[in-house]
C-alpha cells in the first residue's frame, strides 16, 4: 500500500522535508549526500510523487544548477588540476567535488520539497495554522501559493502578446532584447497589483476578517502513524548526524 493512500498529515510531511533538507545542508561529504539523496528519492516514491513530472517542471532551474555547478568547479583552485589550458587551470578535483556536492544538496532540497506537493496548499496552510501560526500570516502564504501559477501564466501571456506584435525576440540584438523585456514589467507588475486590489475589495465585501478565534471547516488530525513517522524522522536525523 502506498503511503499516500493512508493519508499522512501535511505537518508530518513538513517535518520529513525539514529533516531531509537539514541533513542535506549539514553534511559536506559526497557519500553521505548520495545516501541522503537516495533516501529522499525512496521516500518521495513512497509518497507517490511524480518525480519525472517535477524534473520536467524544474528543467529551466536545472540549467541554472548546472551553470552554478560548473562555475563552482572552475573557480575552486584547490586540489589536483583536471583540465588545464596553457597556464590556466579550469577544473580541479576539489572543484569537481564542490560542484557535485552542490548539485546533490540542491537535489535533496528539491526532491524533498516535492513530498509537500502530495498535499494541497489548503492542507499545508491549515497545518501551519494548527501549529499556531497567526492566521494573517497563514492567509498571506495561502494567497501567495494561489497566485504563483497565475503570475507564471501572466508572464507567459505577456511574452506571447509582445511577440505577436511582430517582435522576433530571438533575432534582435541582446541590448534591444533587454529593452523589450523591460516592457514586460508593466503588465506583470501592474496586473499583479490590480489583481491584489480587486481581491482585497472582494474579501472585504464578503466581510472577511482575520480573527484569532477563527474556526475552520477543515481540521487536521494526526494519527498514531503520523506520530510514529515524526518520531522516527527526528530520531533518524539526530542519529545520522551524530554517527557521521
Amino acid at each position, binding site marked *: 500500500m502506498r503511503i499516500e493512500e493512508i493519508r499522512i498529515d501535511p505537518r508530518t510531511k513538513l517535518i520529513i522535508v525539514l529533516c531531509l533538507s537539514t541533513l542535506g545542508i549539514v553534511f559536506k561529504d559526497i557519500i553521505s549526500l548520495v545516501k541522503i539523496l537516495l533516501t529522499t528519492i525512496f521516500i518521495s516514491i513512497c509518497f507517490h510523487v511524480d518525480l519525472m513530472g517535477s524534473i520536467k517542471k524544474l528543467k529551466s532551474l536545472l540549467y541554472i544548477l548546472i551553470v552554478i555547478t560548473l562555475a563552482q568547479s572552475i573557480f575552486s583552485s584547490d586540489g589536483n588540476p583536471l583540465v588545464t589550458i596553457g597556464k590556466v587551470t579550469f577544473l580541479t578535483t576539489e572543484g569537481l567535488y564542490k560542484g557535485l556536492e552542490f548539485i546533490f544538496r540542491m537535489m535533496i532540497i528539491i526532491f524533498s520539497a516535492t513530498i509537500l506537493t502530495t498535499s494541497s496548499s489548503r492542507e499545508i496552510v491549515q497545518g501551519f495554522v494548527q501549529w499556531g501560526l497567526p492566521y494573517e500570516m497563514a492567509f498571506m502564504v495561502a494567497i501567495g501559493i494561489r497566485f504563483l501559477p497565475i503570475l507564471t501564466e501572466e508572464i507567459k501571456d*505577456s511574452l506571447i502578446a*509582445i511577440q505577436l*506584435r*511582430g*517582435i522576433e525576440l530571438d533575432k534582435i540584438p541582446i541590448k534591444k532584447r533587454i529593452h*523589450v523585456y523591460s516592457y514586460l514589467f508593466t*503588465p506583470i507588475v501592474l496586473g499583479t497589483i490590480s489583481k491584489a486590489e480587486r481581491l482585497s475589495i472582494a474579501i472585504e465585501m464578503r466581510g472577511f476578517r482575520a480573527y484569532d478565534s477563527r474556526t475552520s471547516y477543515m481540521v487536521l488530525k494526526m494519527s498514531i502513524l503520523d506520530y510514529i513517522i515524526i518520531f522516527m524522522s527526528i530520531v533518524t536525523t539526530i542519529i545520522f548526524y551524530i554517527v557521521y
Partner: protein
Amino acid sequence: MNLLEYIEFRNTSFEYIKDKKVINSISTKVYKDDITAIVGPNGSGKTTLGKLMTGILKPTFGKVYMFNKDIKYMTLGQVGKQVGYLFQNPEKQFFSCTVEEEIGFVLKIKGFDREYIDKKVEYLLELFQLDHLKEAFPLKLSQGEKQRLAIAAILANEPEYLILDEPTKGLDMDRKTTLVNILEKLNEKGIGITLISHDYNLVNQISNRVIEIYRGEIVEDRRNKD
C-alpha cells in the same frame, strides 16, 4: 470567384488534457479576402481555434498552415509580423504607461522614425476616439476603451490579417458601429479578418462566412454575403 487561402486546418485536433479533445479533427480553409466569423457556445473551442491559427497553441494532432507554411515551424514573432491578434482579455497586451505610447511602442522598437510614429499614433487615436485619453494609463481605462486601444495598437503594426477574439466585448452601440465601419474598410483594403464572437448582430452584419463550432467540431459552415 477565386479566394486566397490564408490559414488551413488539416485534421487539426487539440487537447489541453490528454485524451480530452477541445478541437476534434477540424479540416477547413480560411480565406484572406473574407471576414470569417467563428461562433459557438461557451467552451466550444472558439478561442482555442483562434490560438491555433496564430501558433500560440500547437496542434496535438494534424497541422495548421499559414500561407502553405506549417505554423509549427514559425515563431510567434514571424506570425505577429503578418497577423494581428486581439486577446479576449485586452489587458494582457498592454505594455506601456500611456495610451499614446502603447500604440507606438512596437514601431519604436522596430526603429521607425519619430515623425512617422507620431503621425500613425495620431491617426489611430482619432480613428478609435481615444485622443482625449492619450496620456491615460491603459489599465485604468474602461473595458470598451481598453478594447479600442488594443485594436488600435494591433493596427499600428499594419498586419495583413486580423484575428479578433470578442472584439465588441464592452463596446456600446455607437462604438460597435464605428468598429464595424473600421473593420469593413480594413477588409476592403485587403486585410483578412477572423472574428471570434458571441455577438450575432456583428457576425451577421459584417461577416461573409460563418463557421459554427460545437464541442470542438464544425457543425455549420455557411456564406452570409459576398
